[in-house]
């Protein structure tokens, strides 16, 4: 790669690059995103490499391991360009057939094309698949086109054009004006107006300032930032460099969770490439502007997603939050003014600069502009990453894009916002999703996790799950959060154990009020949301646990009873091998006995039984 000495040089290189690429060249894009990687995408890509070689197609057909293609439910996904044939659930064994039929003879492999989970309608091409209709990819746009490790791929699609535009045609003020006018709000959860934050930091008097990208995506159930860092790392860098130019910072940090090793690898590679080409370093594109980026790996603490805790941990301290104000924009990293934005926020910046603030502000609702990426997971048929304009309804997301639920299941709730969010019941399905509407029903946007729950999930258990998570992750610095999560957990445990009383609900609500009003940071302030929203919308379920000692979803262990049906038990002993406490006894090929005294109700026997002889009530 050349080092770009000027903007003209970059333009010239880009033109040559685009001219040298044949838009009709066959391409195989194997999805290597967060959903496909655990399902064997590496093996599928290896099979393609071998098969293309065998058939003499190396060089003729381009093979790429790309970022997330969205529809994770159908992993491993393979996209054949230029036709955009979207093959689903591809295994290494399917690869020879795809090469022979599609790449050599231009025919479809019918058995690998998309089929709607409910209507059974088929679709071979990406544009015809209902999951993708209604989406508006801005942040995710390049993920199924580029090889994330290729800077050329990024440049060919117009990469670093926004940086060129900002550095050569816009003053720092004009950049901030554009971000302000776009109406972009922070995508990490709080939804603070990005432009306003930048303005405060720009106006702060200091020679040293910092830019931070918060890639500590800790909300369980959210993986959009992982997908962007892994699948389009240069977009994050470009956004940060523009941000650095706008506020006058020379150094940026990307804080990445240590659970995301591939994101670290791809970002490091992108940083090296950007340095080599002169997008990072001294005198970027001869503009006189210096900027560089370092990666800071998280060490495993959820609270570090909170900005002051994150800053403390970059400084080498434990991740304890500090009270705000002062806000990091005034006094942040090493006490210097610091802008900290989330991955998705940064990835939006280049597009806003390229396309203009008005274009961006025309998308979305009155107070929430642009698109939002959601990780749609749980009890929905078509799980995956979706990017929709703000204001799309929950019903559209869950039932149109997500393809609804299994026919034998009933919708119960959507959980948004991770541990700081709440459970939204059916009556709000037509709610247009944006920052304010979600807050009005007791949840939050958060980073964009959207977990669909059906009648097999228990909302009391879900509340307990989040409180247990937060109790574990509370840093312990302030009393309301440390003690509040502990006591909420204790009360929820009592309810789940069948020892609950109706007064417990009032007590929990009081505790929630105290925590929300007096905790130091967002973790403690929003920790009550899972409890409050479930008590408000699913009071009946709490009462069933308290009064009837029943968990109708068959989740809360102490309230369950496992038995073995002697009629259907074949005596295969699969359950005996699983039982951790030796509660199941009996002779081989004869019905087994389950000792209720010993049973710990773990349900492993239920999972292991192939004959549905283990019953639960």
């Amino acid at each position, binding site marked *: 790669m050349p080092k770009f000495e000027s903007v003209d040089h970059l333009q010239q290189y880009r033109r040559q690059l685009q001219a040298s690429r044949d838009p009709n060249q066959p391409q195989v894009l194997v999805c290597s995103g*967060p*959903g496909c*990687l*655990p*399902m064997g995408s590496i093996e599928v890509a290896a099979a393609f490499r071998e098969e293309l070689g065998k058939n003499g197609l190396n060089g003729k057909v381009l093979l790429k391991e790309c970022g997330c293609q969205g529809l*994770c*439910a159908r*992993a491993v996904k393979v996209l054949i360009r230029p036709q955009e044939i979207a093959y689903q659930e591809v295994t290494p064994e399917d690869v020879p057939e795809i090469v022979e039929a599609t790449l050599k003879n231009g025919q479809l492999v019918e058995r690998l094309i998309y089929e709607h989970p409910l209507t059974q309608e088929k679709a071979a091409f990406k544009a015809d698949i209902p999951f993708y209709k209604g989406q508006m990819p801005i942040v995710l746009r390049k993920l199924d086109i580029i090889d994330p490790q290729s800077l050329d791929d990024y440049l060919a699609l117009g990469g670093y054009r926004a940086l060129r535009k900002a550095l050569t045609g816009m003053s720092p003020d004009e950049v901030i004006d554009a971000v302000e006018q776009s109406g972009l709000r922070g995508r990490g959860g709080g939804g603070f107006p990005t432009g306003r934050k930048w303005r405060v930091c720009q106006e702060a008097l200091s020679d040293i300032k910092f830019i931070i990208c918060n890639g500590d*995506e*800790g*909300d*369980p*159930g*959210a*993986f959009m930032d*992982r997908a962007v860092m892994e699948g389009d790392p240069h977009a994050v860098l470009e956004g940060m460099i523009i941000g650095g130019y706008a506020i006058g910072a020379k150094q940026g940090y990307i804080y990445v969770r*240590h*659970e*995301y*090793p591939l994101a670290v690898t791809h970002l490091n590679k992108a940083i090296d490439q950007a340095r080599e080409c002169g997008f990072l370093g001294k005198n970027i594109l001869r503009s006189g502007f210096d900027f560089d980026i370092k990666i*800071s*790996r998280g*060490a*495993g*603490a*959820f609270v570090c997603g909170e900005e002051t805790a994150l800053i403390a*941990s*970059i*400084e*080498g*301290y*434990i*991740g304890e939050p500090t009270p705000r104000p002062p806000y990091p924009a005034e006094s942040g990293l*090493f006490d210097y003014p610091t802008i900290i934005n989330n991955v998705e926020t940064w990835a939006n910046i280049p597009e806003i600069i390229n396309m203009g603030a008005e274009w961006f502000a025309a998308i979305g609702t009155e107070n929430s502009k642009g698109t939002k990426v959601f*990780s749609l*997971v*749980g*009890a929905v048929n078509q*799980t*995956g990453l979706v990017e929709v304009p703000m204001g799309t309804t929950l019903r559209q997301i869950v039932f149109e894009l997500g393809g609804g639920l299994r026919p034998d299941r009933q919708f119960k709730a959507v*959980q948004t916002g*991770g541990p700081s969010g709440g459970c939204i019941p059916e009556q709000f399905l037509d709610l247009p999703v944006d920052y304010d509407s979600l807050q009005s029903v007791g949840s939050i946007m958060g980073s964009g*996790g959207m*977990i669909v*729950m059906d009648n097999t*999930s228990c909302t009391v258990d*879900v509340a307990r*799950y*989040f409180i247990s*998570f937060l109790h574990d*992750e509370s*840093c312990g610095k302030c009393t309301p959060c440390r003690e509040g999560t502990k006591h909420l957990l204790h009360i929820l445990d009592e309810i789940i154990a069948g020892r609950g009383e109706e007064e417990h609900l009032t007590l929990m609500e009081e505790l929630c009020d105290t925590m929300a009003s007096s905790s130091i940071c967002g973790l403690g302030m929003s920790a009550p949301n899972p409890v409050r929203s479930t008590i408000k919308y699913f009071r009946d379920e709490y009462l069933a646990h308290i009064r009837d000692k029943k968990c109708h979803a068959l989740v809360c262990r102490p309230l369950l009873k496992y038995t073995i049906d002697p009629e259907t038990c074949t005596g295969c002993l699969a359950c005996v091998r*699983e039982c*951790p406490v030796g509660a199941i006894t009996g002779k081989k090929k004869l019905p087994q006995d389950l000792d209720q005294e010993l049973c710990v109700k*773990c*349900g*492993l026997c239920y*999972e*292991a039984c192939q004959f549905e002889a283990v019953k639960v009530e």
Partner: protein
Amino acid sequence: MDQPRIEGILSRYEGSSADLIPVLQDIQDQYNYLPKEELNVVAERLSVPLTQIYSVATFFKMFSLIPKGKHQIKVCLGTTCHLRGGIKIVESLGHRLGVEPGYTTKDMMFTLDTVGCLGSCAQAPVLMIDDKYFGRAGVDKVSKIIKQFK
């Protein structure tokens, strides 16, 4: 103490107190835990009090003061994995390996840990062994997965 090894790690850093966490991460990656003698060297070279090092080492989940096993098993207990029975995977693994979460098998082969979320929620329940992910890992598949690492 492995002097060249710790020197190798420290030589990659400027030696400021802000390098503490990256240095500890490198030690954890290379040694599989944070040995006491090495921490003394780190304290001296980065001019960071030993108390701060121990507070960091015990605050963050990725650090361990006792040796971990050859293979690190991380079972995801994120929301989706929780709903899809991630805890059963933990119990089943714990039962098979004879360890509680957070502990290492006697033969030092496996450390069993749980993690808040691995970010592969669409394939829940998910687990990770070293750097390899396994999706839709029901209780019935666990023993097969473990065998690959034995």
